[in-house]
């Protein structure tokens, strides 16, 4: 029998992976680029939140979260216009290498700005435990799940019903036609990119209290978010969420039953298994060539 805390911490990590995976999906749908710097956006957001807003400026949680989201959104829009919009026209291999370079740049920028020492900030909840069905569950994990659910609900409402959401979907569907209908395509792409970095900001703020904030913290999360997207189905929004949750839970089960030494390898094995047997992911979309 699996203890409840193992499952819940798996779901909590799964929510983080899902947020990161959604970030990949939005940039992919907008620009057909896989942004290998996605995990580094999360890391940078965690630094902004902890080192700048929470520890230096001593702002409250809500305000820090909003400011981090705003700052990351602006950063995303700027990067989108200066770098990523140029990568659209390049071959795939050039885009891959450039976004990997972008990730290294963000990592180093964080190290230059904040120094090499790791930060720790327990957040408003600290290490408080909440009793659930007789088990003690870290409150932060429940917050992660709660906030992730709220973000996904807001996202659903925005994308179905707001004008900005409809415009973004139109651009993802067909840029030329959208442009003919008077949609400002470049601005919309920047907006989609900014939304993706805002998602990683949320993930970074949620993840911050669980770990020391280091420049390395984003790399593995970024890779696993990508794996989550592959498991769920490339470019699929429900797929990213489901893939993230599955990956988080399976990873924890593997750690619990097999070994914690090779925890990070589980994600890669899951990815290879999916690429071998179900390359289109759980939510299949009709594409001729995938893996």
């Amino acid at each position, binding site marked *: 029998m699996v203890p409840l805390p193992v499952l819940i911490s798996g779901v909590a990590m799964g929510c983080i992976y899902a947020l990161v995976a959604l970030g990949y999906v939005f940039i992919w749908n907008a620009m057909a680029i896989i942004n290998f710097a996605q995990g580094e956006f999360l890391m940078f957001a965690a630094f902004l939140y902890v080192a700048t807003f929470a520890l230096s400026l001593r702002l409250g949680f809500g305000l820090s979260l909003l400011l981090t989201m705003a700052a990351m959104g602006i950063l995303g829009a700027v990067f989108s216009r200066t770098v990523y919009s140029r990568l659209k026209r390049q071959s795939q291999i050039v885009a891959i290498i450039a976004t990997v*370079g972008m990730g290294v740049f963000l990592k180093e920028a964080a190290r230059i700005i904040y120094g090499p020492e790791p930060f720790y900030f327990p957040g408003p909840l600290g290490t408080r435990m909440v009793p659930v069905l007789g088990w003690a569950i870290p409150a932060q994990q429940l917050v992660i799940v709660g906030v992730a659910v709220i973000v996904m609900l807001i996202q659903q409402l925005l994308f179905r019903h707001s004008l900005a959401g409809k415009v973004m979907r139109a651009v993802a569907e067909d840029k030329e036609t959208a442009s003919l209908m008077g949609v400002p395509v470049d601005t919309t792409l920047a907006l989609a990119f900014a939304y993706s970095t805002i998602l990683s900001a949320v993930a970074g703020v949620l993840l911050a209290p669980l770990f020391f904030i280091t420049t390395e913290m984003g790399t593995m999360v970024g890779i696993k978010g990508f794996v989550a997207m592959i498991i769920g189905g490339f470019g699929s929004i429900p797929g990213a969420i489901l893939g993230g949750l599955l990956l988080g839970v399976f990873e924890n089960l593997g750690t619990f039953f097999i070994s914690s*030494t090779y925890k990070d390898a589980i994600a890669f094995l899951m990815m290879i298994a999916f690429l071998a047997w179900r390359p289109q992911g759980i939510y299949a979309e009709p594409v001729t060539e995938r893996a």
Partner: protein
Amino acid sequence: MRRTSVVLFLGGLAVIPFLVHNPYYLHVLNLALINVIVVVGLNLATGVTGQIVLGQAALMGIGAYVTGVLMVHARVPWWLAGFLALGASALVGIGLGAVSTRIKGHYLAITTLGFNEIFRLITVNETPITGGPSGMTGIPQLRLAGLRLHPDQQLYLPLLVLSVAMTYVAMRVYRSRFGRNFRAIRDNEVAAEVMGVNSRTAKIQAFVLCSLWGGLGGVAYVLLVGFVAPNNFTIYESIRFLVMLVVGGLGSIPGSYLGALLITILPEALRAWEQYYIAAYALGIIIVLLGFPRGLGAVADWFLEPATRTPLSQAQRASPPRPETEGGLGAP
């Protein structure tokens, strides 16, 4: 003129150990020459064949660790250990090549990245064999008979010869039938297959070459330094090889030579700006990719002219509207 410049360049490299006696400078140069071999290998898979490899450091690590483990635990002589390490690298190359026939593009990027990370996990955790996180010490360094010089002084010239030889062989491969197949797959895989190129075989060949060159770099590294640790072969190192490749120009073999030398030596020369140079690399990689896709290869290819010219690039030179002859990496 061009030939003289190349001879002068290599001659200049060859006289360095007689002029420079500081072992540390020579050590940096030796590492640069080893990196040349590794990056040339990476170029064969990534630049020439278009198969992204984000795990070249792990391939180098396999060469280094297999040599080290055999020499320390089994007391195998260095040359036999080196050969066996190359064999192991080739096997891994076959495996990666087979994977790359099923997994493409972004998936291959993340798979090779995962391969690098799994390699690191194994070297960190299998302490009885690999020495764990602190690495493996006491691997006998290679000493040439009768010389009582510092290892870095002894091995500089052999490494220079090896790096030039491996670059030359790679240039020959580039111009051969194999190289033509590689380039065809990079530029348009479907069209290449229609013209009779077996893309499966060619990709496996490219990956075997990539990991052989990488493994050889690892063997040379361990014989020079006498020490291996997981930190020498991380994903970050793989990205550094990618920087050298891009700065040298994707697809230009002589460019890789210059790229590896420059990116290894420059940080040592700019110690004062140590804080910033990795960030500068990362920006540099984006600027070079977007602004100067041929990198240093533009210079290197010109100096080595007839040898770097391929029938295809001659045809392209005849039609001026496409300036990026070798840098054109196929349709997006």
